[in-house]
């Protein structure tokens, strides 16, 4: 204590050039956390927010009460989805670096969150992702060509050229439109879930937010409304340690776990090893079952690590040690599930390599097809006059006039050739 007050300004344990230090991450042994009944009262299970649900142990075995007992075939599907997500990300990043798309965001190291959760939910459940859950699209079987076409803003772009890359949506796949503004989807998911309850539907909603953006007021709105109405919703907080350059301490992670915010609102908070496919699957299944039985919302904190840069506009070597990812104590979700399958005798290094080759070929083929529908730089592009559509359901007179004005302008001179996309800082 000092004689006068002074601001505490959080500082990450290691900066560039220093040894990575994750001693602040409290980790429970695999299998150590009890699994309460899904009907348990929120106040009776507050300790779930302090511990860490883990299933996979150091010997690659699945242990403890949260073991979801999935068939090896299901585990193999999970591995395939995670691997495909990673290879897709890697490819799109390279494409951005070549200047063929303007921007990209990878989910490297966090694939288990979207993939295990996507698999634990029903296809009819509604998903409100942030911009780092592309694995949800993979799980629900979306053709990668469609995602690539969005990133290319080409003639098959689902957003009709209106959104930056990665801001996908999928009506028939029950995945909401992604916003570039952070945290807004969190309370919207609660509203969607409230509507499902009002309408008497057997569907739940799930949403994802970063630990960084949980500082936005939207987080509080979501938690309050979800608690008040006991909405059938799963609120996921993906604690990947970094929000661009600010570490999780700047979102309040130094004093409490993020899962502990749940009990403060009367909502169960579960802290889970976000790189443990089986643990993520199990807690999601628990929360989903609870929500379907009018048990209300659950807050799940996924403890994981943002292995890649925030986005292609970011350079993490300026603010964190280069090798931090290698020191992350919860490992790589893909490696861990692979090793578990191998330990079960249901997988091998050779099969893994074969799968990787197969998926790489799939990504390559998808990219070839996507590019054939046009690139932002080289065309063919969508008709620019489509920009006036969908501002309103029916186009008002002022927009009709402006569309004609632009039409005349485009007819009097060659259409502006697109320039190479610029790499700029975006969040």
């Amino acid at each position, binding site marked *: 204590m000092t004689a006068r007050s002074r601001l505490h300004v959080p500082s990450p344990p290691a900066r560039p050039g220093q040894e990575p230090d994750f001693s602040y991450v409290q980790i429970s042994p695999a299998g150590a956390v009890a699994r309460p009944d899904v009907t348990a009262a929120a106040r009776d299970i507050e300790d779930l927010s302090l511990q860490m649900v883990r299933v996979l142990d150091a010997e690659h075995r699945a242990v403890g009460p949260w073991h979801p007992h999935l068939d090896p075939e299901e585990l193999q599907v999970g591995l395939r989805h995670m691997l495909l997500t990673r290879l897709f990300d890697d490819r799109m990043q390279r494409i951005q670096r070549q200047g063929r798309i303007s921007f990209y965001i990878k989910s490297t190291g966090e694939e288990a969150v979207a993939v295990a959760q996507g698999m634990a939910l029903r296809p009819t459940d509604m998903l409100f992702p942030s911009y780092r859950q592309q694995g949800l699209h993979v799980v629900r079987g979306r053709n990668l060509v469609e995602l690539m076409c969005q990133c290319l803003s080409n003639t098959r772009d689902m957003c009709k*050229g209106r959104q930056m890359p990665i801001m996908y949506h999928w009506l028939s796949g029950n995945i909401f439109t992604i916003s570039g503004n952070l945290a807004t989807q969190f309370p919207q998911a609660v509203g969607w879930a409230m509507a499902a309850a009002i309408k008497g539907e057997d569907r739940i909603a799930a949403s994802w937010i970063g630990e960084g953006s949980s500082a936005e007021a939207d987080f509080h709105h979501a938690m309050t409304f979800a608690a008040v109405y006991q909405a059938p919703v799963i609120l996921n907080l993906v604690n990947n340690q970094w929000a661009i350059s600010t570490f999780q301490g700047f979102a309040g992670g130094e004093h409490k776990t993020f899962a502990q915010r749940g009990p403060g609102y009367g909502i169960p908070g579960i802290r889970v090893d976000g790189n443990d496919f089986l643990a993520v699957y199990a807690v999601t299944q628990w929360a989903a079952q609870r929500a379907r039985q009018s048990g209300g919302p659950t807050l799940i904190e996924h403890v994981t690590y943002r292995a890649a840069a925030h986005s292609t506009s970011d350079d993490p070597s300026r603010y964190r040690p280069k090798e931090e990812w290698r020191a992350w104590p919860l490992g790589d979700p893909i490696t861990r599930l692979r090793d578990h399958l191998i330990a079960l005798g249901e997988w091998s290094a050779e099969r893994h390599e074969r799968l990787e080759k197969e998926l790489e070929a799939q990504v390559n083929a998808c990219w070839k097809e996507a590019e054939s529908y046009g690139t932002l730089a080289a065309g063919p592009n969508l008709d620019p006059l489509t920009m006036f559509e969908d501002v309103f359901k029916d186009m008002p007179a002022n927009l009709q006039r402006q569309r004609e004005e632009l039409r005349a302008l485009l007819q009097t001179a060659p259409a502006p050739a697109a320039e190479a996309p610029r790499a*700029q800082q975006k969040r």
Partner: protein
Amino acid sequence: MARMNMVQALNSAMDVMLERDPRVVILGEDVGFFGGVFRATEGLQRKYGEQRVLDTPIAEGGIIATAIGMGANGLKPVAEIQFADYIYPGFDQVVSELARLRYRSAGEFPAPVTIRTPCGGGIRGGQTHSQSPEALFAHVCGIKVVMPSNPYDAKGLLISAIEGEDPVLFFEPKRIYNGPFDGDPHKPAVPWSAHPQGEVPEGHFTVPLGQAQVVRPGSAVSVLTYGTMVHVAEAAVKLAGVDAEIVDVRTMAPLDVDTLCRSVCKTGRCIVVHEATRFGGYGAELVATVQEQCFWNLEAPILRVAGWDTPYPHAFEWEYFPGPRRIAAALKQVLEAT
């Protein structure tokens, strides 16, 4: 004097003010250790410490609200909102609080907060990294609204904003952070070092708020504009080959009515140019003001050239952007009107 781009000029303004005035503090997302995603606060935390240059949680409402509290307690906070597109979670704090504290407390609780925020498009930022919301804020009485068009003004205006006792919304057109932009994305980028207004004094100086500037004298028509569009308008005037007078508004509120109207009364013709959407845009205020003051001198209806009334589309930003051809067409139209 030194050669600076706009980011360096803004950095220099904050550096000068942190040095001169111990009440000045900087806060915002990624502004501390990292130096800001556009590097505007680079090196400031190293120089002035973590108690004066603060990284914040990702919460624009929280950033603006705590800046208000700091301002009420005698500090002079300079808050950065990473993109103007992200300012809306703080809108209530600006409109209902920051703008009216002085008024509602009969002068006893003012909060001299400066909010800096990058605005405008042309960087393939789509609808969430391209907006120009100056009209939303100029409409609110009790805050000053500024948008510089070059490094010299950026530094001088930012120092004035920080030194003043009123809240200021300081919009920074990010497309011209590194160099002036004439509206043609295919031309190689021109750096500020080759531009006269990239010459910026290293120390303290001010450009007063509330003063517009004639950046190109002319007699045939007045072009009222600001930010990036000042440079686009210059290109359009060349393209149209007309003797236009270009006035850089620089401060949206309070507005320098005299300079604007002196120009229009002289030329008798006027167009207004901004990048923001046209309907209910700031241009409407300019047109109304000019019409009130210059009606008997006008030879032609005043035209507006602006972004279309749609969100800023990622793929079609150059069709959306009110570029030189659209401005030149408007110039021609007002000059041909009899």
